[in-house]
């Protein structure tokens, strides 16, 4: 046996052992998660059943992938790395220059593409569940990006400002009948007021401590919403929130309704399309304002604050005000998004503003690459669109059998995808930083030099 053949054999043995260990671990993990199932039978008794075939498929799949990685993919990647001197990955300028107008153009015609493709009733899902839902999170992601990505302040309670915006709209619209267009800026102002209010006590805190206090703040707002029943109606929430009108023309079947005014056949999709353009406009406003702010002294001060707070103070920058403006700006956009959310749903309850929402928005920002707006938008599409698309992945039944319900594995696959991305790109999808001003040419800055902030 030659030396190379022996080495190859030992590699295969090693890979097989590795895959075996992986299979054992995944068996241990998935036995309670997948292998066992509790079912309530006819007599209302809880019975434990097993799903061994499914468990075997899971374990075999994982062990197989592991074997593939150790035997094929990793050697291939190492060969490639040895061959080429790795340049830090950054998006070519031409890509970002073309991508943004193209993406905006696509978003503008998207409802009509979907109308043409699947008709009025079919496109409701595509415009509402995908379009509007994703755009809300793009907007929230961009808003939180100001606080976390630019200013480097870790905020785990961002959903509180979203809730403030939603309840501001819900309460003021149902009690005083104020219109959406008056309440939208008002909700933004109220939210940024709460942002400043949160900002003051946490100014001295950094890092983990800041994260804990913001987390607590988010919970305080939610618990107040739950318990202040007189005002917020507690868990029952606020129902029948007035829906936004098309600049005074309601979306209903009346003679003065939208459909009649524009001589169309009535369809609930009209309102959805209007809401879609509304949130598209709001999201683009957020993106545009953030882009502008980055190039203004305040934006540069945010980034400088993330890089080095002490150096900022030595240059005469009032770090207190700088942090407060970051909190206020981020909160304001969450307030806009919140009031839109209330107007779209027509019903809000504290259930919509739990910690998992904050976590989702934060993971969008982290996944996208802190500070990168395109990255955050792509991450929002992947995360929110991904979880929505998991709802109808019926082809998975071909692998896992007919009883397999993909929706139940949504979060599992979602978590798996996040782990993968964090291994592949630990600083997010777009980790490089675009300078806000340049003398001769705009060069992207590799993430190794950019700091993440101390909180």
């Amino acid at each position, binding site marked *: 046996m030659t030396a190379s053949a022996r080495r190859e054999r030992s590699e295969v043995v090693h890979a097989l052992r590795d895959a075996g260990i992986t299979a054992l671990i995944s068996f241990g993990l998935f036995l309670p998660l997948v292998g066992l199932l509790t079912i309530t039978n006819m007599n209302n008794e809880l019975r434990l059943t097993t799903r061994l075939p499914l468990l075997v498929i899971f374990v075999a799949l994982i062990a197989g992938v592991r074997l593939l990685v150790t035997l094929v993919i990793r050697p291939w990647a190492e060969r490639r790395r040895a061959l080429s001197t790795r340049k830090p990955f950054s998006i070519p300028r031409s890509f970002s220059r073309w991508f943004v107008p193209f993406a905006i153009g696509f978003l503008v015609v998207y409802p009509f593409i979907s109308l043409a493709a699947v008709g009025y009733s079919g496109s409701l899902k595509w415009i509402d569940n995908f379009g509007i839902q994703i755009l809300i999170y793009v907007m929230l992601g961009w808003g939180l990006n100001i606080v976390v990505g630019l200013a480097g302040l870790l905020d785990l309670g961002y959903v509180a400002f979203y809730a403030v915006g939603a309840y501001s709209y819900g309460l003021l619209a149902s009690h005083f009948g104020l219109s959406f267009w008056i309440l939208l800026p008002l909700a933004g102002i109220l939210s940024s007021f709460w942002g400043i209010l949160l900002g003051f006590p946490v100014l001295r805190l950094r890092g983990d401590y800041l994260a804990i206090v913001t987390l607590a703040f988010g919970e305080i707002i939610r618990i107040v919403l739950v318990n202040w029943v007189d005002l917020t109606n507690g868990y029952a929430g606020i129902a029948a929130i007035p829906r936004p009108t098309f600049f005074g023309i309601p979306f209903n079947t009346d003679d003065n309704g939208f459909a009649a005014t524009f001589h169309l056949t009535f369809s609930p999709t009209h309102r959805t399309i209007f809401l879609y353009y509304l949130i598209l406009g709001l999201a683009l406003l957020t993106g545009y*304002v953030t882009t*502008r*702010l980055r190039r*203004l*002294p*305040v934006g*540069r*001060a945010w*980034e*400088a604050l993330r*890089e*080095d707070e*002490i*150096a*900022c*103070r*030595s*240059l*005469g*920058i*009032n*770090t207190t005000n700088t942090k407060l*403006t970051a909190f206020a700006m981020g909160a304001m956009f969450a307030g806009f998004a919140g009031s839109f959310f209330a107007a779209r749903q027509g019903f809000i309850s504290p259930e919509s503003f739990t910690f998992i929402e904050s976590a989702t928005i934060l993971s969008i920002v982290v996944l996208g690459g802190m500070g990168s707006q395109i990255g955050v938008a792509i991450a929002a599409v992947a995360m929110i669109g991904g979880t929505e698309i998991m709802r109808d992945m019926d082809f998975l039944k071909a692998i896992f059998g007919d009883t397999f319900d993909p929706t139940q594995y949504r979060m599992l696959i979602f978590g798996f995808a996040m782990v993968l991305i964090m291994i592949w790109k630990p600083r997010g999808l777009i980790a490089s*930083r675009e*300078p*806000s*001003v*340049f*003398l*001769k*040419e*705009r*060069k992207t*800055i*590799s993430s190794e*030099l*950019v*700091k993440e902030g101390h909180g």
Partner: protein
Amino acid sequence: MAGEAMLRVEHLTMRFGGLVAVNDVSFEVHRGTIAALIGPNGAGKTTVFNCITGFYKPSEGRIALQHGDSSAWQSLDQLTDSGKRERRDANGALFLLERMPDYLVAQRARVARTFQNIRLFSGMTVLENLMVAQHNPLMLASGYTVLGVLGFPGYAVREYEAVEKARGWLERLELVDRADDPAGDLPYGAQRRLEIARAMCTDPVLLCLDEPAAGLNAHESAELNELLLAIRKDFGTTILLIEHDMSVVMEISDHIVVLDYGVKISDGTPEFVRNDPKVIGAYLGVEDDEVAEVEAEVGL
């Protein structure tokens, strides 16, 4: 010694719990001079710096800085008694630095500083570093962000001027070609000089440098000397520096203050300090009366 006092440190004491880091130190820095603060490790030099630049609140003492006409000094006691932190009139202004937070010392009293361990914004470009330093005037020009977001044209002009000012500094440092590179990518010596240029972009009257020559080779130290002398000549900025590198200190300083164990042990021209037995004793680690003996031993 040229000019009159612009900075007066009087009976400065700084305690950290039971530790007295700086004990009753008084000295003056004169306008348009380069003054050095030297002393063995742990003598309290950086603590004095942090008190002057507002990063520490001194336990006791007064730190007064004056802009403009020296007649402003006459109202020093009046200002101290009034409880205010600054006083302006037609002839100049007077500031009590120990009453001001760090960012106001930089913003209002125009005292800029650098740090012993370089504190550049390493993930921002060289140019951006110099732009951040011009934050306050640009903030005003952008109407505290409001006008800037709305796109009022005045801001673009001011931003262009700020970029030009930064370009001027980059030309002086011979870093124009690296303007769009991240500051963290620069060689060490260039980072040191960039930090000085960034401090100068705040238009200071007093520039405080904490060990600017630390880690520089002989050639880079010589370049630093030239840069500091040029700053004084072209901008009239007064410089106060902490330094261990005696080639820098002795060559360019007009005035040296020596600290040891938090106490001032000598104060005067480089010539005077160089020959002061107390200073030699402090550096050699022996009592004053043994200096002659030790010097004889080591062959000085």
